[in-house]
């Protein structure tokens, strides 16, 4: 999908129009679509991630996953005493049950489950609102379902951050380079003034590797093609009960949380 310069300028001119879009407009047709549970990607490939929350037990389990991502993608680390919390950049991070699934009105979930942390990342939605609002078409959806962002084209307008219901996007308020702990010379950094997020490690996929987080998770995070009935992710989803984040918004997330059940009992 190549956009020539002229087209881009035209789009850039529409930025102002984008400003006028309200959230209602953004979600309107996705909500309609979701009510029927029908609109599902029919492409050959739709990458997805299944997170088996049962397999994440110790703090180290969680941290290993985040560290793997941070290191490989040159993600700056927030220095607590210096950093403004707003400056935090996160591709994959952990949060509480309440923050992760605010729409779950079931008070009777097992208490231990509700105490757990959940790894959160970009949901690579099948109907991504961030793509719709991007005035420069820097964010786009690939045929394989990955919601990708062209950093060269990002103008830092942050419409996508406003549109994303999952808070999966971070803005570089400062030059990130001084805050990168272990530099990966094979991966670029970002510059000040652009938005960034999880890419499902598209660069690793092209080399036939698994996403870094999945690789580091000891099987807790499983990556695969959702549209392939034989894929591992489909098998897990077929046999386990899972949750999506805020499914009622109709964004159709590609990240699933296997929650299990009996092990929380007692």
């Amino acid at each position, binding site marked *: 999908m190549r956009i020539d310069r002229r087209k881009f300028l035209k789009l850039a001119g529409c930025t102002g129009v984008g400003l006028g879009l309200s959230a209602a407009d953004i979600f309107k047709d996705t909500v309609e679509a979701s009510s029927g549970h029908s609109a599902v990607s029919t492409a050959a490939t739709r990458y997805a991630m299944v997170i088996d929350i049962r397999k994440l037990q110790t703090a180290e389990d969680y941290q290993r996953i985040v560290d793997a991502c941070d290191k490989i993608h040159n993600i700056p680390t927030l220095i607590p005493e210096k950093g403004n919390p707003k400056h935090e950049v996160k591709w994959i991070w952990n949060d509480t049950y309440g923050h992760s699934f605010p729409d779950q009105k079931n008070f009777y979930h097992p208490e231990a489950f509700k105490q757990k942390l959940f790894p959160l990342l970009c949901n690579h939605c099948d109907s991504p609102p961030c793509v719709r609002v991007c005035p420069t078409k820097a964010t786009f959806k690939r045929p394989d379902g990955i919601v990708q962002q*062209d950093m060269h084209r990002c103008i830092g307008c942050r419409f996508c951050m406003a549109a994303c219901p999952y808070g999966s996007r971070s803005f570089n308020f400062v030059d990130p380079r001084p805050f990168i702990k272990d530099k990966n*010379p*094979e991966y670029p*950094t970002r510059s000040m003034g652009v938005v960034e997020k999880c890419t499902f490690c598209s660069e690793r996929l*092209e080399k036939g590797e698994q996403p870094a987080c999945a690789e580091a998770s000891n099987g807790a995070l499983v990556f695969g093609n959702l549209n392939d009935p034989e894929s591992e992710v489909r098998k897990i989803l077929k046999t386990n009960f899972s949750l999506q984040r805020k499914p009622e918004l109709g964004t159709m997330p590609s990240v699933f949380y296997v929650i299990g059940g009996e092990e929380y009992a007692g």
Partner: protein
Amino acid sequence: MYNGGKIIAGLIIFIALVTFPFYTNMGKTIEKPADPTAAADELHIGNVPIGQMRAEHMMILDKWRDEVVRGGERFITFDGDQYEKSIQNGCLACHSKQDFCGKCHNFAGVNPYCWNCHYSSEEDQL
């Protein structure tokens, strides 16, 4: 001359501004950066003649960038070998940022923003 002081002061400032290139380079001998050794019509990765690469590398890089980011076509085959269309892992694998890119860019005062994001292994405290 009337108001001579002010007028001459003004003229001196003006002349100083206009002749800035002359006195600032007084006595210097400027060597242009040495040409890369390859002949202009030899082919570069991507089947582009070196001469054309020199004039239009920014456009070729721009094209490759779109192919990688948008199309997921990360690799290019040249002379039977695969090369990654990447500044960090491709270009800089053969060329030195300082010596190869930097010399001409600095000489011509052209400041691309590639380096804002793309590391070169020879600097940036790596």
